[in-house]
């Protein structure tokens, strides 16, 4: 497995939100990393997945994004993602998931 199989997650806390910036590939090999990274984010009003640097996502990766969405809903937290690469956008579009997500242009975008 080379470097392209890896995922780096940078967690950044801002005033009203925690931003998880994903860099690399979110697939069967890395999906669990995202689950771990979102443990213990209960206190935040909003969780943002920054997908700008995410090069690839597959259905397992998608499932892990959706499970973050579900956890946020259960906790009453806002959840948003940034647009991501063409491949990410394609998968979010084809699977109809895009319609269920709040998609923002930038991770620190001020929400109304």
């Amino acid at each position, binding site marked *: 497995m080379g470097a*392209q199989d890896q995922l780096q997650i940078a967690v950044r806390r801002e005033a009203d939100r925690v931003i998880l910036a994903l860099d690399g*590939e979110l*697939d*069967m090999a890395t999906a669990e990393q995202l689950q771990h990274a979102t443990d213990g984010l209960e206190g935040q009003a909003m969780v943002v997945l920054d997908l700008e640097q995410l*090069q*690839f996502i*597959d*259905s*397992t990766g*998608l*499932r892990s994004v*959706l*499970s973050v969405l*579900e956890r946020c809903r259960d906790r009453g937290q806002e959840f948003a993602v940034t647009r991501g*690469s*063409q*491949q*990410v956008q*394609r*998968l979010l*579009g*084809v*699977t*109809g*998931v895009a*319609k*269920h997500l709040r998609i923002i242009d930038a991770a620190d975008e001020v929400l109304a």
Partner: protein
Amino acid sequence: MSDPMLPTQDVAVELLVEAGAVLASSLDLSTTMRQVARLTVPRLADLCVIDLRDDDGSIREVAVAAADPRIAGPLEALRREHPLDPAGEHPVARVIRCGEAELLAQMSSSLMHSFAQGSEHARFMIEHRYHSAVVAPLLARGRTLGALSVLRLGESESYELDDLELVCELARRAAMAIDNARLYSQLRKVEQRLEAVLVNVAEAITLTDDRGRMVFANQAAAELLGASTPTELTSASPGSIMPRFLVLDEHGRELDLESMPARRLFAGESVEPLLVRNIVRATGEERWLIVRSSPVVDPESERILYAVNVFENITEVKRAQLAESFMAEASRVLASSMDYAETLTQIAQLAVPQIADWCAVDVLGEDGEIERVAVHHTDPTRIELAERIDRGYHLDRDDPLGVPEVIRSGRARIYNDIPPEALAAYARDDAHLAMLQAIGATAVIIVPLAAPSRTLGAITLVSSESLRRLSHGDLALAERLGRRAGTAVESARLYTERSRIATMLEAALLPESLPQIPGAELASLYRAAGELNDVGGDFYDVLPYGEGRWLLVIGDVCGKGPRAAAVTALARHTLRTAAMLELTPTAMLETLHRSLRNQPAGSDLCTVCLATLELVGAGARLMVTLAGHPPPLIIDADGEAAQVGTPGTLLGVLDPIEIGEVEVELERGQTLLMYTDGLPEADRTGMQLGEQHLFEPSVQRSDPTLVGLLTQVERAALRRANGRLRDDIAMLAVCMD
């Protein structure tokens, strides 16, 4: 003083002969000089003094001989108290300065006063009636080392020119002796320093001459070469040391004396350091040595006088390095194939000759019998011998010793002494014994082929012709090998078993055959990703769907393994039932969504594409329904492709779902290609060129059949994935004839 002088000529000859003997007899400087001085008294002189010039230019008296015993002692004391001034007028100082001899035939008291070192000295000379003297320089290699003075006292004869020559000759000889003695003592000092260094260094060092004689060896060399003292080595006859050892190169080839660096040096070759494996014949002990030889060249003749040989013992380092590279190579071999019989054969080949001369691998078969799967020796005829033994005297699993015992106990064994009677007791009959003797084992290691939970067999390593003793390091390495190989064999077995189960499961998840649709051709292709084809989540199906209608299904359940397989089965059967009930495609997908939502874990997601096909004339009417699945393509006969369908929501996670339905005609010659995401995502770029490029229309279809098209698309995907798919690919296609 009063002794009559012998005729000059005879005295001269006699003196020089005796001086020659004295000068050759000892190399200790002060002893020699005293002997020379004594030779002259009384035959040539009543008093003889030898002075030497020190390195700092001062003059030091080294020998005094006198016929009158009352003279020598006081003179020495006087000289110590009043050393001669090198710049003064004393004849000795003058001779040393200018290197010319002086004859003082008659010394008047005024002359003596003129060069005396103080009044006490003058009084001494006058009191002892100094009369006549010759002072000759001690000349050697162009340097004046000192002066030899002979004196006559009282009534003795005066010296003449003949005497001058004789004294000069004597002085020349003495000077040579002094020079040699100095050189010798300098050499001794250098040698002592060198020896102190050589004796104490950890490396074994020897000095050999052109006849192969060892002229020097240090203690480390003695220990390395199996001698109790360095002297034992230096007194051994040439060539008698090497036969004590088996000397091999890095690749196990035997080396002779002529290939040793020292011999090659004397043969005029330039030599590189040589790495040798050295085995002590007497004990079987193995060492790895680096032998470096450098020449000691005579500066005059430029001939090589000696070879300095340094033996660096790198056994520990080399063993660790070999063990690591061996294990790395073994791991590579073990990981390279899932065919364990082949793999174990390669392991046996790897172990020879690095660890042992023989290597055999036995495994426990399904029936509990011991089966020989590999045996290796560098000599094929020897392998045949081992095979003959195995055929004729097959290992019995209840044998009390050897491989069966190791397999039963799971414990490694090492035997470094194999007494003939033990071998005889082990042999089943005389023929067996003869063959075992022919193997010639001097040491044996048997280690279990150990999987985590059980012993699968055993690896046997035998040392024979190399005479090598097998160490506990070898045992540890062999045990590592046994564990590593055992794990590999176990996983190969599990893999075989798992692929069988996976194939069975996959068969249950995919239709055995596709139904016939009149006027249409159907084809499907399923390609599992990777070698460890865990059961994937792709599925497809073609089902009758009322009169003259069919339902084409393709879907993808997220994940792999048993859970995905269960969800796949659920999806497939839900859709089958729904098709039987002739639900609308949207209703079918909603049903599936609800059943997925009712699953306990709740996060199983699934994407599905449904296409209903109704025959209309020579073509068909399609309704394409998508639930989170990539849209299918319609491909024209000329290769032009277009996506059909509008995206819908994937099933099982999100509520509410949106399902998009699109109606489209499939004309004669057109193909509908449905596929799972593994196809566009093969290269992980997400098909930025657009999915219609999936099958590369620019490439001529070499195979006009529908299966041919699917194969071509699959090959293109494999190329894009560089041969390594990370997700399964499923394709289902229908073409109107």
